């Protein structure tokens, strides 16, 4: 897959007050139609006016699949949303889950089969289509698979696919790398104001 990184945009130090952290540049997955040669395409766009849309130069994103088909990719995204339901995380993040599992399926026939079988079983348990089933039914289907190899593989992958990326950092307010900003020594490491400051014996002033 070819990912076209979006232009880096760093957060402003002014943003480092109590209410907002500095937010990092975004690195949206983006694939151009003309490069496509894979088995499927997942695409969408960031909601207009959302925090992420304001950080990214373009709201469109796309992920090309090499082994899984579009329906399987979309079902994995829906499964990711049941496992880790974050309203504020855009579909683009859940598409990373599909992308990473697609890569694993491409590398191992066993994994491809595990995923294909598990996804078929999910659809079956949810009464035909996991994606269009009711919320309740989706949750029941996932619960019924807890502890299976398929469940463990997808859940384990979520931990890094969903949470170790710039979009998630921005949504959860985690600024990531601090070194290039000079750390927090002058950027709010002790700016919490809703509790009294500890006395100097307990917490001496910083050295400048």
């Amino acid at each position, binding site marked *: 897959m070819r990912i076209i990184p979006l232009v880096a945009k760093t957060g402003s130090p002014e943003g480092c007050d*109590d*209410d907002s*952290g500095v937010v990092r540049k975004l690195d949206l997955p983006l694939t151009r139609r003309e490069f496509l040669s894979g088995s499927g395409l997942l695409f969408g766009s960031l909601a207009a006016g959302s925090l992420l849309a304001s950080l990214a130069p373009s709201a469109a994103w796309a992920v090309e699949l090499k082994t899984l088909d579009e329906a399987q990719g979309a079902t994995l995204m829906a499964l990711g949303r049941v*496992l*880790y*339901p*974050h309203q*504020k995380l855009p579909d683009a993040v859940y598409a990373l889950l599909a992308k990473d599992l697609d890569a694993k399926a491409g590398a191992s026939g066993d994994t491809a089969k595990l995923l294909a079988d598990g996804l078929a079983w999910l659809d079956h348990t949810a009464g035909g289509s996991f994606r269009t089933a009711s919320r309740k039914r989706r949750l029941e289907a996932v619960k019924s698979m807890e502890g299976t190899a398929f469940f463990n593989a997808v*859940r384990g992958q*979520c*931990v*890094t696919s*969903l*949470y*170790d990326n710039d979009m*998630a*950092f921005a949504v*959860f*307010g*985690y*600024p*990531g*790398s*601090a*070194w290039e900003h*000079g*750390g*927090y*020594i002058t*950027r*709010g*490491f*002790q*700016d*919490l104001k*809703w*509790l*009294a*400051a*500890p006395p100097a*014996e*307990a*917490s*001496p*002033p*910083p*050295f400048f």
Partner: protein
Amino acid sequence: MATFDYSDDSVVVVIGSGAGGGTLGNELAQKGIKVVCLEAGKRQSSALFINDEWKSFSQLAWLDRRTTSGTWRIAKDFAGLPAWICKTVGGTTTHWAGASLRLQEHEFRARTVYGEVAGANLLDWPLTLAELEPWYAKAEDKMGVTRTNGIPGLPGNNNFKVLYSGATRLGYKEVHTGRMAINSQPRDGRGRCMQLGFCFQGCKSGAKWSTLYTEIPKAEATGNFELRTGAHVTRIEHNDAGKVSGVVYVDQDGKEQRQKARIVCVAGNSIETPRLLLLSESSKFRDGLANSSGQVGRNYMRHMTGSVYAAFRQPVHMYRGTTMAGIVRDEAGHNPQRGFAGGYELETLSLGIPFMAAFLNPGGWGEDFAWWMDHYTHLAGMWLVGEDMPRATNCVTLNREVKDQWGNPVPNVHFDDHPNDVAMRNHAFTQGERIYQAAGAIRTFRTPPYPSTHNLGTCRMSSREGDGVVNKWGQTHDIGNLFISDGSQFTSGGAENPTLTIVTLAIRQADYIARQMSEHAI
């Protein structure tokens, strides 16, 4: 930097360059003793460290295969990763948080003070606090520990403010920004802490003490010290007289090498150290080197641990600034009325989003898990660390079914929590939650132990030969020129983070080795 010949049998070989090995190697080199330090990992630097949790983890962590067994939750959550330690020059002092506390007087006499504890293999140290005090003072000076040697404490971050507020409202008295081997002001050629918040990822400002950029370059400057990186020791050899004569290692090109030695000191951290002794079994030492007591690998301790995270209505941004930003010491004493022996510390801790997802509740999913992640900016966190009971059955053994990249049996780490550990953990969880409730938490969460960061006890010190592996100098009872120079020596764990004591013992051991060498005793 010096280079020594493979056949030079006058050198001291030090295995590992972390807290124990790095310190010992430098101390010996300063005294004019020739040292070859063999380190399995590669050399990084502050410039190369990465402010990114997973990338840094792959850069620094020890990821060779290991297996687990026992009833501890780690065996289920992280079956292949019993310990969170490093394979890199500087060892785990690249990852460590810097908390530097002395053991308490009574902790050296755990068996006497706690009495017989069923299911525990408690023993008094062959050492007292009074004997160690002058050495502790040297270690604190070397490491630049705050609140010692006139060095001011670090400024507390937001995470500390929450801890301080809750703890003092609860009536705790000893609450401050800790004794940390992190520069609060420039010292020893290193700058002051920039409050980066990536202490676990290698300190990019060099404010935090690590043997990587303190002991090792100082040792190299003496001309008596050679560091070989990517050198993974697989065997310690001995002669007919039963003295160790050298080591075999796989070098950075994957080639096997043999380095002769007058003395061998093992400081590979408490899993690799006993593993290496066991791997060095021979027809003369069928159960492994220095194992006539049968105690090599046993009494593995990992400290009672756990974490408490709490969500607040208002933002905290706990990730800003030092990871371990402050401490509550009031529970550190031995007070059996609480229902357990020994004590514990409560220390702030913070994880970034990637590690939070992995460690908050391993295996967890669903709306509740998502709720905690959604509240990330409004969380405060603390780590609980206390004394756990040594048990003969908690042990590092060779798993002959599974082989590492060099074809050697991997270590298996077996651990069952002692009822005392469980009782202490529950007490600590409750107190941690009460602290945050007193500060106004809307919800609190009990996070189970992370893979072990404090690994101790697998070659313990004892006055009697049958009770342990080494004497009070870390010299093995069985083989006079074989030393253990890391946390494996600990007879019992104490409540305190162990590294200051490891460094203290290494400084003292260097002194002993130098004396023994000049007296031609070894």
